[in-house]
């Protein structure tokens, strides 16, 4: 593998990894913090208040 190809493929993987991390991170925070499902709300109730999410 030449240096050029390696750098290029690493940059593309990097962008994908960054987007995946942002998306999964946002999904976890919104699921625990904001989702309106009753079960999620009850389970995460104290966490939501403690972190200051606008909960109810």
């Amino acid at each position: 593998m030449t240096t050029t190809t390696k750098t290029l493929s690493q940059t593309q993987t990097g962008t994908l990894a960054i987007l995946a991390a942002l998306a999964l991170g946002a999904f976890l925070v919104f699921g625990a913090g904001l989702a309106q499902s009753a079960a999620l709300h009850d389970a995460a109730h104290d966490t939501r208040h403690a972190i200051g999410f606008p909960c109810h």
Partner: protein
Amino acid sequence: MFRKIFGSALLAGLIAGVVASALQHAFVVPVLVEAEAYETGDIVHFGGVSPADAAHDHGDMAAAHAHSHADAASAGFDWERFAFTTLATIVTFSGFGLMLVAGFALAERVGVAPRASVVGVLWGLAGFAAVQLAPAMGLAPELPGSAAAEMGARQTWWLGTILATAIGLALAALSRSPAIALAGIALIAAPHVIGAPHPDAFAGVAPPELSSLFAARSLGVGAIAWAVLGGLAGMFWTRDAQGEHHGGAAA
């Protein structure tokens, strides 16, 4: 790259989440549970456990023997509530960790990623400022039984404030151009110039003494947990970067 981002983020998020939930159980949840005793005519959370008992028997291990899922009210210490809160806090901080380390990876492209855990702590405190401190200056951390404006409006202002503060801090702290730094500061100020949605009248049933204690503790615990998150994420990120430098391949 996947392994570097997700490994650093999830391990730091797990540890920071454990630290955060321990501090929440010690400082924040007892105040919250006590406030629920004052909350009348509202939803009863967690199957009607007596808030006063839960507050005063906090940490009573023996009470666990009396616990059953069908009858949480009989237990002095609510293990179900404890477990769910711990889990939700770990999940939340894992999410924060993923977004923080994604920020490291973006910053690395312009040569400003943390190269020491102490810089990670600063990133963590910036995350705290964006996600907890700046929104709290408009919408204080809320006890159950507090009066507040309509939830949709609050969530919109809250999310907008987080984004504006995060982007503003990144511009102000990481840019070398004074004009861009000033634009960042203006962006941080903007949500507070617009103003957070507040109710027409304050008629919350939570005692003001409890509310202020809750808000202060919520922010204190958040600051510590975010500093731990940032410091650990910075340490893991720096270590992985050194590994790459010595010939390890990015996954």
